[in-house]
């Protein structure tokens, strides 16, 4: 299902377009550096505002990343038919390649935010990494689903529909980052895993149909 040539192509395109690496990530970094100085006039923010702002930055970054390079349905279908590439192969390979591009950037962004605000998350590193992984995976699949299988070709419409879904995913992350106890963290992680599986199954069903 995951084809290395599709992943290679997507990574090459990303590297040559440099939209996320040279445009979105620096913009977000500037926001991260400027934010604590603007809000509190120092390189530190209070714990209660830290989490909200971090989630907000995560949503902004994910949204910018999602709408950075919209897929054109006609062009994509032509390309897939020209190479006799199955939609299902393209979808999963593209999801995987987006994850490769997206996941490390988010981790770097969160580390930078923690660094510049002199604040840290309260939960374990494993929980944070897993929650971001689930968030990235879900966000990527939802974004691709909207782009490939719906006629919402307009960036604004995509933005309007995608942001509330990302907010929903971010709400699931919030308790994990707040540092609730081990048992509750595990429940939330399992919930996130369940949601990921539902989205995966739904997409799979839709693709096969």
């Amino acid at each position, binding site marked *: 299902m995951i*084809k290395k*040539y*599709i992943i*290679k*192509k997507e990574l*090459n*395109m990303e590297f*040559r*377009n440099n939209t996320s690496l040279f445009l979105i990530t620096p913009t977000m970094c500037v926001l991260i550096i400027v934010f604590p100085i603007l809000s509190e006039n120092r390189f530190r923010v209070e714990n209660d505002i830290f989490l909200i702002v971090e989630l907000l930055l995560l949503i902004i970054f994910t949204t910018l990343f999602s709408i950075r390079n919209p897929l054109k*349905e*006609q*062009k994509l*279908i*032509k*390309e897939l*038919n*020209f*190479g*006799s*590439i199955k939609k299902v192969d393209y979808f999963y390979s593209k999801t995987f390649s987006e994850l490769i591009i997206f996941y490390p950037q988010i981790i770097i962004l969160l580390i930078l935010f923690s660094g510049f605000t002199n604040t840290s998350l309260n939960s374990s590193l494993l929980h944070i990494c897993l929650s971001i992984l689930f968030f990235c995976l879900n966000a990527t699949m939802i974004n691709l689903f909207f782009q490939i299988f719906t006629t919402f070709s307009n960036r604004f419409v995509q933005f309007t529909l995608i942001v509330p879904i990302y907010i929903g995913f971010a709400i699931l992350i919030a308790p994990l980052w707040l540092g609730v106890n081990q048992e509750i963290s595990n429940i939330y992680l399992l919930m996130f895993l369940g949601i990921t599986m539902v989205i995966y199954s739904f997409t799979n069903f839709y693709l096969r149909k």
Partner: protein
Amino acid sequence: MSLFFESDNLTLGYGNQLVIKNLDISLNFSKNYEITGRNGSGKTTLIMCISNNFIGNTFNSNIHRKNTTLMEISSSPSLVPELSLLENFKYFLFNDNINDSMIFNVLDKYGLGSFKTDLVGDFSSGMIKRSEIAIADLKNPKVLCIDEPKVYLDENGVDLLLNLITKREKEGNTSILSSQESIGAFKSIERTINLND
């Protein structure tokens, strides 16, 4: 005879605007077809529908198609502009059992050998079309649809295309050409679909 595309009363359009109305069409494997018609008669729309690239309104037309290897070369490129020519070849041929030496031979045959590391985004329309024909030559699909076959190609390019069509005819593969008038590329044609009628 084995059909790969069939439709009675095929109606196609964009929005509520009809482009093709009530066309009966059945296409067989191992036969050649031509689609002719003046500008705006629906040649491109029809060839896109046959090659499964049509995004528009089919007005609930009954379309039956058989699963087969099918490629379309049209006036808008299918190649990925951000990739080099060689990367494009490898990307579009990864499903087929084709090694590097076969790719290099075809690149040389089509006069593209010296451009293999150049980005396709920097290519002219003629070079892109030549590259797509080269990929079609390697891929050798059961059905090859070409919209406006001679457009963008120079004399040598047209010769290469005609050679490919002749080769496909000998191998018993189907080619469908769409242009304003017949270009006389086939030895035998099953049907000429004239959209002016």
